[in-house]
Each structure stands twice: as structure tokens, then as C-alpha cells.
């Protein structure tokens, strides 16, 4: 009884005042509930959307990629007193390994917020089987660390993604195009004529036709020898805990070594600025709804104070301290906010559920109308 907050003077009086003005209390609680519901629902909707988009974007793309610095053409002639008209052609970029990539990887791993970093060797090639030939980009990976960066292992629909020296993992589209299944052999060729026969160890589906068609994964060592980068890494792919911190971390890496660093934020600048604008709009709406709710509570309490001035006078005459009267009204505001927020959360849940059900109507009807004979045959 002693610790029961309902036995407190200010709580007792506040609750009784609220019960007396039941209509006002109910209306404002409903107002708070609606406002809170809108805030929660919008936040859930937009953050869900955002997570989804980021997830899709970063599905097969590392948040940060480290490359060897670009090669630049250096004119031999030094700048002297005489003006020289020159046209410097940009150099063709050779495939090169990052200098001392092991050290750079180790440095990157030490940065706070970095989950893992994995060396990658990539280059263009052709996948051949029988008469079918398809241009592919060959990606040489170290499965153990690569799967921490890109969740290839979770995207495997057949076989496994754990590539050995004579294995290859291909996408569903490519598998269909050249007619291969897990265990089949295919030939991987390079433009310079080098070719090697590999067995399909797994088939992945990233949900993107382009990737499923053109990316193939082989073991890092096989790629190093095929693409003539023994012991090298053409890039280091880095996963970070918070995708939005990618650019900051990229800058730190850039600052600590002579490398070229891309973050998904700079690579998808337009998408990212659209998303930032959306986040800002979302925040603004939430702030204004919040202010509206607060003004609603305030207006009800202002009216209540006027209505209750006689009662407040009696309470003060009886020896109630100013602080106690203050708390009586603070508690009313707090309780209205709390109850309104609780109802608002339920409302948001109900709304989200309803939307979910509505969104599922079309696929559900298709599922229900599926002809069993056709489905089994197909």
C-alpha cells in the first residue's frame, strides 16, 4: 500500500479530475491515439520500406569496396617557363592487385563498425557448355570471409556456395541459358584464350536477372591464377554494421592508405539523396503531428484549469502546496499521453495488419485458384 502510486495525493486528485471531465479526457486521448498511431504507422511503413530497399541494394553489393588507386598518365615534360600545349590521354586501367592488400584488409577490420572484409579478384570471361556461350563476370572469392560480406550462401537455391578450386557457382538465369544443373561441368574461358573446366557446385538467385545471368563465383586462388594476379586481390569488399555509416568509414580507409574506395552511398548518390529527402519529410511530419498532439493536450488542460479554478482554490486553502497542484495537472497530461500512445500503438498495429491483409489479397486469390493438376505437371 505504501508504494502504491495510486495512493498518492496528486495521483488520486488527477485521476478523479480526469474522470470528472470524462468527455474531454476521452476526446483528447482519442486525438493522441490517432496522432500517435499515424506517427508509429508512418515510421513503421517508411522504415520498413527503407530497410527493404537497402537490403535489396546491398544484396549483392558490398557497402564499401576498396580498389587499387587509378593509374594516371604522367607527362614526361616538366612544367617550365614556356607554355606547352599538350593533350594527355587517360591511361587504360590494367587489372592490378591492391598493393599489400593483406595489411589494408587488416587495417580495415580494425575500424569500429566494420563487420568483415574479404579479398576479391574479378574479371571478364565466358561460360561455355556445348554450343552455348555466355559472357560472364568472374568473381573469385574466399568463401569463409565472403559470406560475411555478401550473403551468397543464403541465396543458394541448389547445391552449396562453398566453392573449391575446381568448382563454380552460377546464377539461375545462366544455368537455364546454358542448360546446367548442380554437378554438371562447364568451361570458363578468358578473352586471351585461357580456359578451364569447372563443375557447378551451386546455383544462386539474387532476385536480379542481370546478376543471375552474368555473375559466376569461383575460388579466389583459381581466379588469381586465371586472371594472372597470383596472390593478389583486385578489390577488398567490406561489410559495415550500419549501412548509413558506410561513407564515413570509407573516408577513414581512404585517409589511411593510398587506395581507391567506393561506398554504396556515393555509388548510389541519387537513390541515397532521394531516401534522405524522404527521411526528412517523414521526420517533419512526425514532428508536426507531435506538436499538434501536445497542443491538443495543452488546450484541454487549459480549459480544465479554468473549470477547476474553484476546486484548486479549495485545495490551496486546505494547505495543498503549489508543487502538488502543479503535479496534479502534469500527471493528467502524462496519463492522457500514455493512454493515447498505447491506444495509438494498437491502432497502428491494427492498421498495419489490415494493410498487410489487403496487400495479400491478390496473391492469395491466385494461390487459391491454382489448378492442382496444372501446378503438379508444371
Amino acid at each position, binding site marked *: *500500500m505504501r508504494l502504491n502510486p495510486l495512493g498518492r495525493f496528486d495521483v488520486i486528485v488527477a485521476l478523479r479530475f480526469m474522470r470528472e471531465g470524462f468527455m474531454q479526457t476521452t476526446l483528447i486521448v482519442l486525438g493522441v491515439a490517432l496522432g500517435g498511431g499515424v506517427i508509429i504507422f508512418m515510421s513503421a511503413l517508411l522504415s520498413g520500406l527503407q530497410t527493404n530497399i537497402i537490403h535489396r541494394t546491398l544484396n549483392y553489393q558490398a557497402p564499401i569496396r576498396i580498389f587499387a588507386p587509378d593509374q594516371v598518365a604522367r607527362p614526361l615534360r616538366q612544367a617550365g617557363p614556356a607554355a606547352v600545349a599538350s593533350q594527355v590521354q587517360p591511361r587504360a586501367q590494367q587489372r592490378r592487385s591492391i598493393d599489400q592488400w593483406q595489411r589494408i584488409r587488416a587495417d580495415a577490420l580494425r575500424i569500429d563498425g566494420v563487420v568483415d572484409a574479404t579479398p576479391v579478384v574479378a574479371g571478364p570471361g565466358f561460360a561455355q557448355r556445348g554450343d552455348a556461350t555466355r559472357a560472364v563476370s568472374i568473381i573469385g572469392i574466399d568463401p569463409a570471409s565472403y559470406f560475411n560480406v555478401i550473403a551468397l550462401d543464403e541465396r543458394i537455391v541448389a547445391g552449396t556456395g562453398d566453392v573449391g578450386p575446381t568448382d563454380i557457382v552460377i546464377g539461375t538465369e545462366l544455368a537455364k541459358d546454358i542448360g546446367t544443373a548442380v554437378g554438371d561441368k562447364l568451361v570458363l574461358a578468358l578473352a586471351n584464350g585461357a580456359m578451364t573446366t569447372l563443375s557447378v557446385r551451386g546455383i544462386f538467385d539474387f532476385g536480379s536477372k542481370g546478376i543471375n545471368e552474368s555473375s559466376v563465383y569461383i575460388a579466389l586462388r583459381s581466379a588469381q591464377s586465371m586472371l594472372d594476379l597470383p596472390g593478389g586481390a583486385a578489390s577488398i569488399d567490406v561489410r559495415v554494421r550500419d549501412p548509413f555509416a558506410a561513407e564515413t568509414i570509407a573516408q577513414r580507409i581512404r585517409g589511411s592508405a593510398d587506395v581507391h574506395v567506393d561506398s554504396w552511398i556515393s555509388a548510389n548518390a541519387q537513390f541515397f539523396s532521394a531516401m534522405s529527402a524522404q527521411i526528412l519529410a517523414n521526420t517533419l511530419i512526425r514532428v508536426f503531428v507531435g506538436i499538434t498532439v501536445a497542443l491538443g493536450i495543452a488546450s484541454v488542460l487549459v480549459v480544465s484549469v479554468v473549470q477547476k479554478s474553484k*476546486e484548486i*482554490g479549495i485545495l*490551496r486553502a486546505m494547505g495543498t502546496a503549489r508543487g*502538488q497542484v502543479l503535479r496534479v495537472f502534469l500527471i493528467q497530461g502524462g496519463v492522457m499521453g500514455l493512454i493515447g500512445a498505447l491506444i495509438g500503438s494498437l491502432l497502428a498495429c491494427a492498421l498495419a495488419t489490415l494493410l498487410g491483409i489487403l496487400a495479400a489479397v491478390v496473391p492469395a486469390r491466385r494461390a487459391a485458384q491454382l489448378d492442382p493438376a496444372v501446378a503438379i505437371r508444371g
Partner: protein
Amino acid sequence: MAEPAGLHATTLRLTGLRKSYGAGTAVATEVLHGIDLELGRGEFAALIGPSGSGKTTLLNLIGLLDRPDAGSVAIAGDDTQWLDQGALTELRGRAIGFIFQYHYLLPVFTALENVMMPVLAARGRLDRAMRATASGLLERVGLAAWSDHQASQLSGGQQQRVAIARALAMNPVLVLADEPSGNLDTGNADAVFDLMRDVNENVGTTFLIVTHDPRLAQRCDRIIELVDGRIVAARANADVLPGSPAAGPASSP
């Protein structure tokens, strides 16, 4: 505050009390022009005077609801001149009970809760003892059966009796009543008056009652008459009706 308030022989001492409204403006009017007054422990006094004579202003000053421009109010020996708001509120709650003309109960609370309210406000949280005390007080004013009724459901006379019980809840040394029977019919007015008299005699609480009713004023031990902000007469009441309970113990402080 050297000794408990209730033991002091002088419950109330006013010295040179002045109060004006609209101070600093062209229409400043002084309502009270230097009031000196002393009420002993257990006195039962009436404050009379025509409308506008300053009765309510005086009552507000005595009740520590307002501060005088000059002079001092001492309650049971405590000079209130230098007390801050918090201390005034605390002293008011502890030493003074109020009874108003329009009973002014809190309508959303039951009779019992109204009586408990001053103690609840003072202690900050509910306990069993204060419920028992409040029940006892309601029984004393004859409303034990009504304790769980909402204040708004009681008749005027009943509400005023609850208000008396509430005024006594903190066991104050002084009860200030502003036209306690002004809003009641004769029967109820007498009952309320008798009740205050009864408490005065049995508990020894000092009462100061503002009234317009000469009949009731005559039944008090002492009549203080206020005209135009000055006390024109403060006399022991020689005319206390024979046989009235007031006749006996009035002179013994």
C-alpha cells in the same frame, strides 16, 4: 515554532493590519486601516459588518490566503510575516480550517474523501489511519451513513456539515467560517451553528465566524464589528441567550 501551536494561549494576534487594493495606481483604495485584534484559545467570535466593510479581506489575511501591506498576523504565537509561500501553505494546512458559504466540497469525491483531503495533501499519500480519523469526524457531524456518497449528491446542509468535518481534519487551532449558514434555511443554519459550537466546547478550537445574521451573531461569545475597515466594537457578548450552551465556558481561556 518553539511549542506546539495548539498549546499557545493566544490563537490569533493581529497588529496594525493594513491592506489596500490597486496599489501604485490612481485608484488605490485602502480597505483595512490598521486592525488590532486578539483571539484567545477556545474563543467563539462573530465578525459582523456591512457589505464592503472589509470582512472578507480580513478573513483572507487571517487565513494566510493573502498578505497584508503592513502589520502582522500571528497564529498561535507564530509570526507569519517572514514566512515564505511554502511555509505559509504548510502552516495554513496545519493550523487553520476553512468553512465557506457555498460549502465548496470537491464534487467528484465522496464525503469521506473530502474530509480526508487536507490530511492526504499534508502527508502526500493515503493510509488507514487517516481514513479512520475522517470516519470519526463524519460521525461527529452526523453523516457516518453518507460517507460513501459523492459530495454533489448531498443536500446543502449535509454538504456544509461535511465542510465542517473537513475543516477539523487537521485538528486546527483556528477555524475561519465565511457565512457558513448564509446559504441554508433556518433549521439547517441552526444545526450547522450548533455543530460548530459543540466542537468549540468539546475540542477547544477557536472559531471566527463572519455572519450577516444578527440572530446567530448574538449566540457567539464575542462580537467584532467592522465598519469601513476599522474595528468599531469588539465586545464580549453580554446578551448571550440564556440557556444557550455558550453561556458557560466562554470566559475560561
